[in-house]
């Protein structure tokens, strides 16, 4: 569907993107994830045509569109702040692309209203000024406006980043539902790992203008390809040599203590004796953060402080100062 081949982008002397290769399949929800300045938005803007790459090609449905002007690409886009035209009504915003294409009046009206109905905007809301809408309604107008011209692809550039936490979760779900309903190939840019993990079929993790890993959320999280990816996604413990040596001693693992070794917080267990193949190391509880849904414990193990979380199911609640058994299974370690 969309193929980026060896894309390179330069801003003056600054190499913003290097060797970007991505293949997005038809109907897929594909996320570009990374910290700010990593190149994810640049990649998106290369696909939509706002940026001219100095190297490589952008191919959509077998057609090279690398140098096609923005206005001829028909790739729908939802902007970070939605970029709704403030001087126009909701209706005119949605109709904009159709008017540019000189779609006949009757058909235009029909398509605008159909699209509005799909994103659940009422006739009354259609006649409002965009400033009178709530954040959620604005997002739906932005999506309707992007999709009414029947683009092959929808691109979304951090559309939830300006919202407060609660609305973000609500709109995230709404967005996923809409995408499933339209079945449109979607490229989504975000720096929020939770958004990326919950929404995506596939994720490309960006760092400093290159792609660190492409994979499903499960692969990205559990089998992070690089140290950067495992640090960027989720919370994690980096284990020091003493712990690694202890694990080697207790199990038949042959870990190299000089290598960077990581373990996720939820893969460490406290006072669980019957985990096959796991090392059991004595530790001391030195801190506790109570979240309700789960509890985070700070444990001192082999002279190092590591964090772990336990589900708040009423079975595990340790006090500071308590001595516990910390179970770490070598299978759960990520080594770089």
């Amino acid at each position, binding site marked *: 569907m969309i193929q980026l081949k060896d894309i390179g982008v330069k801003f003056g002397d600054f190499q913003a993107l290097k060797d970007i290769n991505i293949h997005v399949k038809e109907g897929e929800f594909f996320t570009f994830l990374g910290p700010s300045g990593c190149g994810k938005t640049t990649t998106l803007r290369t696909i*939509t045509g*706002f940026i*001219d790459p100095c190297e490589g090609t952008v191919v959509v449905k*077998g*057609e*090279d*569109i*690398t*140098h*096609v*002007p*923005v*206005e*001829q*690409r*028909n*790739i*729908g*886009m939802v*902007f*970070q*702040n939605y*970029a*709704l*035209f*403030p*001087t*126009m009504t909701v209706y005119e915003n949605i109709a*904009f*692309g159709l008017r*540019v*294409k000189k779609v006949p009046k009757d058909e235009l009206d029909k398509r605008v209203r159909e699209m509005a109905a799909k994103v659940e905007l009422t006739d009354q809301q259609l006649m409002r000024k965009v400033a009178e809408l709530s954040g959620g309604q604005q997002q739906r107008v932005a999506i309707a*406006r*992007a999709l009414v*011209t029947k683009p092959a692809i929808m691109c979304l550039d951090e559309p939830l980043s300006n919202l407060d936490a609660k609305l973000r979760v609500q709109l995230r779900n709404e967005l996923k539902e809409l995408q499933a309903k339209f079945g449109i190939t979607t490229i989504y840019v975000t720096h929020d790992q939770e958004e990326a993990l919950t929404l995506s079929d596939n994720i490309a993790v960006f760092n400093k203008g290159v792609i660190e890993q492409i994979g499903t959320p499960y692969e990205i999280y559990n089998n992070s390809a690089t140290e950067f990816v495992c640090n960027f996604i989720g919370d994690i413990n980096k284990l020091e040599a003493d712990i690694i040596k202890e694990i080697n001693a207790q199990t038949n693992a042959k870990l190299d203590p000089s290598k960077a070794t990581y373990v996720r917080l939820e893969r460490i267990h406290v006072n669980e004796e019957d985990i096959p193949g796991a090392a059991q190391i004595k530790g001391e509880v030195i801190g506790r953060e109570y979240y309700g849904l789960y509890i985070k414990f700070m444990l001192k193990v082999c002279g190092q402080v590591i964090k772990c979380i336990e589900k708040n199911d009423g079975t595990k609640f340790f006090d500071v100062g308590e001595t516990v058994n910390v179970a770490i299974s070598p299978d759960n370690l990520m080594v770089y």
Partner: protein
Amino acid sequence: MTRPVSLQKRPISWGKVLIMVFFTWFVLACLVLPNLNLIRQVFFSEGGLTIKPFQKLLKSKRAMKALRNSFVLAPTLSLTVGLVGISLVLITEYFDIKGSAVLRLGYMTTLIYGGVTLVSGYKFIYGDSGVLTQLLIQLFPNMNIKWFQGYGAVLFVMTFSCTSNHMIFLRNAMRTVDFQTVEAARNMGASQWRILTRVVLPVMLPSLFAVTILTFITGLSAMSAPMMVGGTNFQTINPMIKDFANTQTSKDLAIILALILGLATMLLILVMSRIEKRGHYMSVSKAKTKIVKQKINNPVVNVLVHIYAYALFIIYVMPVVLIILFSFTDSKSIALRQLSFSSFTLENYKYLIESLSNYKPFVVSIVYSALAALIVGSIVVIACRLIQKNRGKKIFTTLEYSMMIPWLLPTTMIALGLMMTFNVKQPYMFNQVLTGTLLILLIGYVIVKLPFTMRMTKAAFFGLDDALEDASKNLGAGELYTFRRVIFPVLLPTVMAIAALNFNGLLQDYDMSAFLYHPLNKTLGVQIKSLTDDMGNPNGLALTFVYAVLMMIISSVVLYFVYGRGGKDNMKE
């Protein structure tokens, strides 16, 4: 697979070429060459470089005196306006003064009238047959009735007429003061005086510097006040330029004075932009709180400040009130400066409407101002769009700076430049003589309003969300369609507001009109000036007052729409 058209290889657009040709011509013919021509006329008049005009200037007692006067007026005015201006801001925004809302309206009267109208209002009160003078004469029969003349009078009138900038910019600066810093200072035990001088005023300092320099420039280029109340003893550079420009033998003196004024203005603006570059104090607080008016603790000081505030109020409001009242009285009342119920009449307004020669200046000024506002708005919008689309390209940066040239030059110099360049056929003006035509004043008006329009419009352009344009393109719209349907509608309220302010300013113009007006089509400023030359002519005064009232109404309406209602967000500089 066919290779699509590359972005770079679009054909040359003839429209764009035409626009570029227009701007090149406009900048050269209207902004650059007339001013260069002035320099050439003075220093290269005899085929080679000559310093004779300098010698002539040094020998001319009147010219030298005018120079001296201007350089005395400017710094003293900066001081007095600064003091009054700061106190206005403190009274209206910082201290808890009873009736501050009414006071504020009074202090803002300078926004609705200025120039010759304002001076005539003051003259009506303080002048030789003025209201106050007559009152004083009854108390001190031996006093000099021409007491309100010369340096003191000019300084007085200008002190109270040049506080508009303070009421706009300095008040805005005061509003940016984070009240939590005041509370923090109080919490640490600081006195009111200490808080004011160490916490509040320092935040306003950069704005204060800027408005002070503007005042200095205003003082240097004073025109109507010295002309009308300066007397023979206190004429300044600009009135002198006007005098000299009208006599064949002294034209070179006019030019050289204009050049000196221009040079001084440029220097001052350089200083100001340095100060502006240093930037304003940005509040670091995340949750800024609005200022709570401070009650003055010391009761004696409190009473004194109240008295001072209301005294200022009376000075500001008196001319306006009297102009309005006397515009409704018969000529006898005006001549005697006495109000009585029986003398109220609408005759003056009728007189205006009934006589073509009386309402014509009004119509002329309205037409000129509206046309100029429209033209300058269109030129600047197109220029800003070009500059915005071609950020960083040298030729467009040059265009941007060129459009700001008139900012560096006093109005009189621009007027002289046009007058003395287009009094002969110039190939770059299509071999047309413009001096003495209707067109030249329009060009002058457009030129003087360029810099302000440019600054404000550019700010609006750069305040635009780039994503809007991206979104439009993404939906398939071309450049022109995007501009017409998306960008321009967003800018329109600001563009209209700027045009309204320009219209307002030009309606009252005297400085430019004085040089370039068409003899058969006097502008309002010129008409008022000639009417008020004779303060003893009650019919002339009555007409002046009617003009003034109508102008105040127009200005108030314009200001209300621009600053008062929905326009607040548009016009904050």
